């Protein structure tokens, strides 16, 4: 494939993994967030060549065979999902945040997720969910 093919297009079009969403194509909204070697990255700004030798985790990959990721459970339970389009990126950003800061305050959660836009929720239940998810992970 061309080395300058966008990672988001590889995921969605070539690998049929449409869980990763495109909201702006310019790195502004966070909707395309994936984990590369465990760290959050914006797939709309990444090119194929940048994936060489790296592992990629998308939203489809964080649940285990018989169980959702604790953050996914928390998002469902706490009403953090409305239209849902921002959610895959939001969840992966939250995964990254909790890896770096396993016990964040509400303000630290807000700071950690400030690169993920949501137009539906007003963010409050998303913060609730991440707080609850952090407890579940412990």
């Amino acid at each position, binding site marked *: 494939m061309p080395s300058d093919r966008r990672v988001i297009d590889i995921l969605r079009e070539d690998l049929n*993994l449409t869980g990763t969403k495109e909201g702006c194509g310019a790195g502004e909204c966070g909707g395309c967030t994936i984990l590369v070697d465990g760290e959050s990255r914006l797939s709309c700004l990444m090119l194929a060549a940048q994936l060489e030798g790296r592992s990629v985790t998308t939203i489809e990959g964080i649940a285990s065979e018989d169980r959702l990721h604790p953050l996914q*459970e928390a998002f469902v339970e706490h009403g953090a999902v409305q*239209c849902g389009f921002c959610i895959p990126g939001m969840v992966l950003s939250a995964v990254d945040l909790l890896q770096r800061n396993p016990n964040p305050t509400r303000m630290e*959660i807000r700071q950690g997720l400030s690169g993920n*836009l*949501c*137009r*539906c*929720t*007003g963010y409050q239940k998303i913060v609730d969910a991440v707080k609850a998810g952090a407890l579940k992970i412990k």
Partner: protein
Amino acid sequence: MLVKSDIFKIGSAIPRADALSKVTGQEKYAADYYSPNFVWAAVKRAGVPHARLKSIAVEAARKLPGVLSVLTHKDLPGSNRQGIIFKDQPVLVDAKIRHCGDAIVLVLAEDKPTLNKALHLINFDYEPLPAIFDPEKALEERAPLVHENNPDGNLLQHISVKVGDVKEAFLECTTIIEGSFEVPFQEHAYLETEAGWAYLAEDGRLVIVASTQTPFRDRFEIASALGLNIDKIRVIAPYLGGAFGGKDGLTVQSLLALAALNSQGRPVKMWWDREESFLAGVKRLPARMYYRLGAKADGTLHALDCRLYFDTGPYAHLSSEIMALAMEHAGGPYRIPHTSIKGWCAYTNNPPGGPFRGFGVPQVTAAMEQMIDMLAAKLKMDPLEIRRQNAVRQGDRNCVGVTLVNSTGALDCLETLAAHPLWQERKKWKESAGPFKLRGVGLTCMAHGSGYGPVIPDEANAKIELTDEGKLRIFCGVSDMGQGNASTCLQIAGDILGQDADSMELILPDTDRSLPSGSASASRCTYTYGNALIRAAQAFKQRLFERASTLLMIPTSDDLSLIPGGIRHLPSGKEVPLSQLAQLMDPSERTCTHYYRAPVAQEKLELHSSSKVFGLPHILFSYAAHLTYLEVDELTGEIEIKTYLSVSDCGRVINPQIYEQQIQGGIAQGLGYALSEDFIVEEGKGLTPDLSTYIIPTTLDVPEMVSIPVEIDEPTGPFGLKGIGEISINGPLPAVANALADACGIRVSRSPFTPERVLSAMKEKAPHEVKP
């Protein structure tokens, strides 16, 4: 394992049914369709606000390898005109360009790079025309005409409503306040931009999967625009990635239909990128509002005169209806015996106006709620007190003279707010501001009328099926754009039919399978469809009991109860599985439908208008009172909202979690409208064309919110509820404006209240105060 709710009881905060598939990335939106042989479609847009189209050069694009088709208006069957009430918008421009986003040429190509190259290779020759960008100026005599054949010039609609004698009444007022307010465009900025997928099925029918609030109405618009037989068109609406009114009507659908007819049998995908969404999508109508409000010495409101100017841009869309709803709310939730409310909606060459959550009510609430505070200040009255004194009760008339016959909880909202610690402790909070910070609190009270009004029927057709496996298939007839109405359908059906998540299935709107049920708009989704669904579920329950009593050989259905997957005879304990019951029922008996039409106002309004008015008056209103805690930085003019309280009367609450979702989301959008969403247009061109220049709230811009329901039963509503989708977006702008005035005595007449505007206003007020 994931917590699953087994009992769908009305009133319980059960997690939404769609949350699981969305949180795992499994749910497919209209933007998520691909196939091995699909084709991309996109349009070349005008880029100039007003021009006569002379010729189009497409040959270079057509010759490009990988381009399947390049289509212009010449390739369009049908009328080439779309629109909801007035069909005034070309699918592809034939004669005249009326705004920068007008579509000129449709291109189909194998891949995105080829598509973009082809679009670049297209040129068109045009004669620029003098353009008009101001709604008031557009109504002047020599203004350039946007639609030359419109007998009213640039006027789309003028409505004038009078109650009592406002001229006399002002003479009786001891205090009169005047104010003028200007509110800008607002961009929906849904995360999923306009998207769709279309193909010609084997039977020759056109199938369109679109992110749309209006799958049923879309068929009519597409058929008329492209000269197709409506029966040949199927529209499917999956979950939308947000809409808020911006997908009410055609966005990609007619272009996709045209593309699918020219794609040599291959499926077509159209997905507007963010810049195209900004350029071509409809926006909240900007407005200029001139208010004059008079009161008696004791604070009783006595006279209101307002003139409202709305800018619809190039096309009518639903702007006349937006203005009508605005006018009905122009006086707020107050008793005002004498009013004169006049509105003008004008065509310009600005970006296209259209529905956006609130539908005209945020604009007028921004004005009226500031006027109330200004009046209170002049009368040295408490802002809560003056609202309490004048708030409407059931049986009063609203500002256009219509009697409020249904539940009216304005006063209950104010009283609940008054008792809340946030109101009680506001003075203490204000006094503890830090250095260079000023603190204020702002109050607003609002109403929001739901439904379509008296002309267009606000109706729904609910449908339930018992599958041969014994599952209850619930058809959600109204698009779910994130508001959770699909999940609520399951909750309603589950409650009445005693089923759980495992024994029910949900079908999203599909014009081949669900029945016409109107648009996802006007805060009507759960009210109207819910009322139809309740009746369908109750009728179906009866039928199932009758069949079960036959099967169980018992004389009556009195002692029967529905349980997940079956029916139980309580005295004997005998059970029959629904799957068995299904086998014994004729397929025609296994479907139950029910029609519901929402009641309309019986009173006729005294009004004058330049053309037919739809959507005025309404009969069902939700109410709310909001309070905000604001801190402004004296050095930078930056506003921070510390806390936001909303108290809402939306009838009974079916699901507290969904209730809060709606209220919180609306507040966040309202705060963006108030503080950061500065949509700048110059000479018809958008200067904030993407999310880096048009700033919507992030996690750091929305405070912790408290949302309290005041549950007054609304007897006409399903389980006593009223609409909730829009009301909360009406409060934040005036709440912030009132809080700012409370903090530092300034009002900024033009929103949003950016730091620059706030700082300028502060300097204007106190030019001699030297700040570093």
